[in-house]
């Protein structure tokens, strides 16, 4: 299936997004009262990626804030009192889910605002509806008893730009639930963003097309969605358990794999310790390429589209240089 088809024919998005005819009705009803309380809408997202997508959807209708600071390791994040203050009075809360931002549950239950807690009008678990990879089983989280117990899976799904359609769908639905009078604006924003993203995706896929099935080693298992979208083969990862340094036997095995399969590139994230990757690179002649796992991880990744501009261009450059 071509990239264009994928975005044009969004089974999923259609299933979870309010049918357009009905929306048109809602829009007509609310067009009369066009000075809206939506100006006071405040969206809080846990990560920079979701915040960037939320910004694309709500445009100037709302202020969008992020909890995890840019360039921090999101998987090692611990919330501060100011984060509670930030969540207070938010109209919409957008989270990654799948246990990635588990600390949000505690903050939300401390606030006790039903509208932004699980099941509330302003609560968005962006993972709902995503075709998840590497599913491990059900969540056993006791807070998760609304029958929505979706699997625990690899949580880095925003790294497939095609998933932006589903993510923005969820955000748009919540935005319209909270501020129905802004529906037309929200839908228009989302449509134009997705149209631009669709064009971008074609370009990104073209850039990486010559490197189809390229073999890579990654430091952390961050890239399965990215690999699926751009048809890359991530042969192995260096760090199997978060925060535990790889053993020397594992490094020796990886060095052998890199040589046998002629792997030229090791994908690394800016906030992970670099030693193991550099050591492997020195031993095997592969190069370490720093890709941004999130918006803000590197200065160039200023928003969702820039994130892929940066990652795709950096990776394509490294793979071209390596194949020469």
């Amino acid at each position: 299936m071509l990239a264009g088809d994928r975005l044009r024919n969004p089974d999923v998005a259609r299933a979870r997004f309010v049918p357009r005819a009905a929306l048109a009705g809602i829009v007509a009803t609310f067009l009369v009262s066009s000075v809206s309380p939506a100006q006071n809408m405040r969206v809080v997202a846990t990560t920079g990626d979701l915040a960037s997508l939320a910004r694309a959807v709500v445009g100037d209708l709302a202020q969008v804030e992020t909890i995890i600071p840019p360039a921090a390791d999101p998987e090692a994040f611990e919330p501060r009192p100011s984060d509670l203050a930030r969540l207070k009075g938010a109209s919409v809360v957008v989270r990654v889910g799948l246990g990635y931002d588990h600390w949000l549950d505690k903050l939300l239950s401390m606030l006790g605002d039903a509208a932004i807690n699980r099941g509330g009008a302003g609560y968005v678990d962006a993972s709902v509806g995503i075709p998840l990879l590497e599913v491990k089983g059900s969540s056993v989280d006791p807070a998760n008893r609304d029958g929505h117990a979706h699997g625990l899976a690899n949580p880095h799904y925003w790294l497939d730009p095609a998933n932006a359609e589903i993510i923005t769908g969820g955000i748009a639905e919540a935005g319209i639930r909270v501020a129905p009078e802004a529906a037309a604006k929200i839908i228009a924003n989302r449509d134009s963003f997705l149209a631009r993203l669709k064009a971008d995706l074609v370009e990104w896929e073209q850039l990486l097309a010559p490197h189809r099935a390229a073999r890579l080693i990654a430091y952390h298992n961050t890239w399965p969605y990215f690999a699926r979208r751009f048809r890359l083969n991530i042969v192995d990862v260096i760090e199997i358990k978060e925060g535990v340094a790889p053993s020397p036997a594992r490094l020796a095995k990886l060095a052998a794999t890199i040589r046998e399969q002629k792997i030229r590139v090791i994908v690394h994230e800016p906030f992970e310790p670099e030693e193991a990757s550099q050591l492997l690179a020195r031993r095997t002649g592969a190069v370490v390429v720093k890709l941004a796992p999130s918006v803000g991880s590197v200065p160039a990744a200023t928003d969702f589209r820039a994130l892929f501009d940066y990652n795709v261009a950096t990776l394509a450059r490294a793979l071209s240089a390596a194949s020469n």
Partner: protein
Amino acid sequence: MFEDVLAFAALPLAAAIVFTGIHTWFGLQVLRRNVVFADLALAQVSALGATVAVVAGHAVQSAAGYAYTLIFTAVGALLLTASRGFARSVRQEAFIGVLYVVATAATVLVVDRSPQGAEHVKKMLVGGILSVTADELVKFIILYSIIGAIHWLLRRPLLAAADHMETSTDIGKFAFWDLVFYLSFGVVVTSSVATAGVLLVFCFLIVPALVGSLFSSHIGVALVIGWIAGAAASAAGIFGSFLLDAPTGAVTVVTFAAVLLVAGAIRAFITAPAAERSRNRQRGLHVGGLVLCLLIGLSGAWVVVAPAGDHPILAMIETAAGLGPDRFMSPSERADYLEAAAIERRHKGEIDRLYDRERQSRWQGDELTPDEIRRIGSMQQTLTEMGRGERFVMDYLRTRGRERERWYVGLPLAAIGFIAAATIARRARRAR
């Protein structure tokens, strides 16, 4: 592969031996001064300096980065020197502890202002001795040789300052030598912690010095024994981490502890004076036997009391004796147990097969559609749940087996263990 193993092991081992060389000397002085945790405090203060440098926009390895680290280390050394003056009524260790926690907390606060420092702090704790480079090693050798030479020349006043920790009332007389000691200690610890991490450096510092002190009160002899012990522990740790396929730093810390245990045993049972030796041997046998018998007795009693609980010692005995938990089940229970185990294995295999299929499709052949991906995901989830169900069945049947086992195994085990323990205790009392 073998070449890689050698290449991955040779440099870290060389680095570990170099670290042992300088740290054993400092460790002996630290033991004399009774300031065991001074290295943690100094390392943390220098880590704070490095973190401040990172936040101020300098690389840790740049000249500015070193300057920040050194200035903070010097301040730490001054504070430690001054702490001897405070420590008249209270032990100096208390001040060192406060310095450590304050420096750690300050590092967290500084990192919190700038997330880029987090990686640095993570590295400080865990270290990366595995990835030490030849250039770094040469730098260490040069730096430590210079400091070692200075200490050799100044050994008399330095040791005098260390030996007069408790008796001295004339603080000013030793303050200068204390400062020299802490400054050079700070420089050493700062550079070694950046490579080996806080935990491992603590081992390099204290364990060989302890082993040396066990065998000799002469500092030169203790130093040589410490070097041998440290080198042996480093080699065991690095090769052990290959064999066990486990992180090097953590394995090396464990082997250092093991070397300390072995050295303690040698000291008590082999090299001690003859009379003391035979008493130690007898005492060791009594205590060891008592602990073992009590463990066996308690484990047996625990099976009788709570057959459904966790039984690590019993499981160990079962594994060692080749007895499965199915031994005490009825034939039909055993059949169910084995079937559940087989089904669970099959589910696991199926989950892996699905995972491989999805993984291959990322780059090979036709891309899977989102719905196909969802189907695979929900199948994996279902199979995981079903596997959990089989495990529940197995746990239930194992508990049924244990409920019978408690009379056949638990009761005799408890009886044997407790009777043997009582016998040993009576003998030990008579021997005294």
